[in-house]
């Protein structure tokens, strides 16, 4: 994560290229779905679902990094947990804003208290709580451990989101969780897989970027503290 490496620029380039391909493919190749599914608005699906997957990915990373931090505290684990929670908020907000705009056409309403929608919102709120807590409650050991505990507990909701459509019904489509048989054209599958690939790269890029920033910020704070303890004026 330190030093000048070609990995990050290469990853950034691959992410940008995959998104360009995805956008062109979705808008020029993938057919429009039936009106009951939202017609042309259904094309939100190829970003909405991968964004939800990227939220899961960020959430699981937050869970692993937080658990590892609670087991043995290191600045890298803390920085990764913080970065993953921030990314989970961004991807979660993408899901929670794109979904209602699609729903307006498909269901006639922007929001309904459907199990999947409600559990998704709860999960995003947990990650928002982690980010806000880290931002405003100081950077002490106790605060970091509390944020890590919240990161572990918050991820418990992710499987509930996934299985909520199967267990409790509701309006939300089940084209993916039903075994993937709901996509009527091969190009719809390719677009979805491309979306998953692009969002995975984006999640890695953003988590890498924010982890590095959080680590540098922690190192800078430690250096400032050392300088102050030696009587230097900053």
């Amino acid at each position, binding site marked *: 994560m330190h030093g000048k490496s070609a990995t990050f620029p290469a990853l950034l380039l691959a992410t940008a290229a995959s998104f360009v391909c995805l956008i062109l493919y979705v808008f020029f190749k993938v057919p429009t779905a039936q009106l009951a599914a939202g*017609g*042309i*608005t259904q094309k939100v699906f190829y970003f909405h679902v991968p964004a939800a997957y990227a939220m899961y990915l960020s959430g699981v990373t937050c869970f692993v990094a937080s658990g590892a931090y609670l087991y043995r505290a290191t600045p890298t684990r803390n920085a990764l947990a913080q970065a993953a929670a921030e990314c989970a908020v961004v991807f979660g907000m993408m899901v929670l804003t794109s979904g209602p*705009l699609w729903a307006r056409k498909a269901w006639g309403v922007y929001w309904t208290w459907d199990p999947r929608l409600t559990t998704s919102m709860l999960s995003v709120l947990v990650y928002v709580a982690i980010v806000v807590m880290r931002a405003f409650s100081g950077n002490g050991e106790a605060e970091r451990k509390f944020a890590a505990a919240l990161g572990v507990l918050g991820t418990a909701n992710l499987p509930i989101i996934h299985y909520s459509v199967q267990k409790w019904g509701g309006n939300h489509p089940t084209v993916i969780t039903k075994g993937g048989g709901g996509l009527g054209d091969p190009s719809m599958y390719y677009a979805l897989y491309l979306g998953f690939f692009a969002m995975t790269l*984006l999640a890695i890029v*953003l988590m890498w970027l*924010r982890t590095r920033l959080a680590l540098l*910020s922690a190192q800078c704070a430690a250096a400032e503290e050392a300088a102050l303890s030696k009587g230097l004026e900053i």
Partner: protein
Amino acid sequence: MFNQAPSTTDTSQRSTEFQPVQGGEETTSGEALLVAAYLVMWLLLLFFVWTSWRRQLGLGERLGRLEKALGRPADGQG
């Protein structure tokens, strides 16, 4: 793009009154909603990248102050 109700030249089929109904037919433009959804997603991403950039700028300033306090010029700056 969407299937519209066929137009008719039969004047007897025209409406002669308006009756209120529950709900009514969907009139929201799918294209507008699609563009709005994509715009919002990209704006969220850009905002996140912008906050990262701001944080990095702040970090650069803090490092600059530290280096000044240590009495040596900042390496790799300018």
